[in-house]
């Protein structure tokens, strides 16, 4: 997984914001979401065709809900596609995703401003 793979992804997937060298990102989380898709693709979890199709569906759904489609939301759709495909492939259910999201929220809440946020077992609410 390297810059060449990244360039391959920007060619295979329509709409990836990029410049001459490859993808560009507005915020760090966008680069993280991009890198995760690259890693999962390298693991063979999906092909870029499959990814592009799911992403296009996600964008269509968002537009139906009134997404302004200015390009600023591209990586939000990218993230939603990751979540959807991971559930579809049986890697993690959306309940699991929510549980981890809530745990990170709890971790941020108990972490004083200025310290790095780390996830601990006690951040997870017991499964009910």
């Amino acid at each position, binding site marked *: 997984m390297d810059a060449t793979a*990244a360039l391959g992804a920007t060619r295979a997937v329509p709409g990836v914001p990029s410049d001459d060298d490859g993808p560009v990102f507005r915020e*760090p989380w966008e*680069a993280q979401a991009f890198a*995760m898709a690259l*890693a999962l693709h390298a693991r063979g979890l999906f092909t870029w065709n499959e990814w592009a199709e799911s992403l296009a569906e996600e964008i269509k759904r968002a537009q139906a809900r009134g997404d302004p489609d200015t390009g600023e939301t591209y990586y939000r759709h990218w993230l939603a596609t*990751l*979540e959807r495909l991971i559930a579809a492939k049986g890697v993690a259910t959306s309940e699991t*995703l929510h549980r981890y999201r809530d745990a990170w929220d709890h971790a*941020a809440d108990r972490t*004083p401003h200025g310290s790095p946020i780390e996830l601990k077992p006690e951040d997870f609410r017991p499964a009910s």
Partner: protein
Amino acid sequence: MTGPNHHHDHDHSELSETELRVRALETILTEKGYVDPAALDLLIETYETKVGPRNGARVVARAWADPAYRARLLKDATPAIAELGYAGRQGEHIVALENTPRLHNMVVCTLCSCYPWPVLGLPPVWYKSAPYRSKAVKDPRGVLRDFGFELPESTKIRVWDSTAEIRYLVLPVCPPGTDGWSEERLADLVTRDSMIGTGLPKEPDEIA
């Protein structure tokens, strides 16, 4: 170190909804063995210059080109940086540290949720490692040597530790041979590492 350094014990960290979801995904995929966080970090680091507005490079370039701006920046960096469109988290101050031929500043940081990436760019992956942090404090000259540059013995090195309320931006020495350059061109010389003091700006012939 001067300036306010209040402790807000009630003041906790915050992550946006999107950041929470991204962290959740990364944790799950790591636990299940689908991704290796170190490999992710390395890939992300290759986008060092491709993330965010890179306000810091513009701030440094303006300070190099405009002595009046430089004076404002060194006196009180927070409003000077805001002039260029970046307003940090409320209550957070940015202090600009001026490098000179006699003094080199270097910054260490815990990489908490308020790391000012819109100014400094993506943090390097080694930045939060304990060996870097302790070596930076004990042997800053050795750290700089690890990064491939040697400062003359006559240059003093000062290490600054970010706190919850104070963030630092290093104002590097402007490389020679750039007289009359536009701010845009100057900004291309400013690297992320030069703004945290673990590198120098590029030389004019490096960006030809």
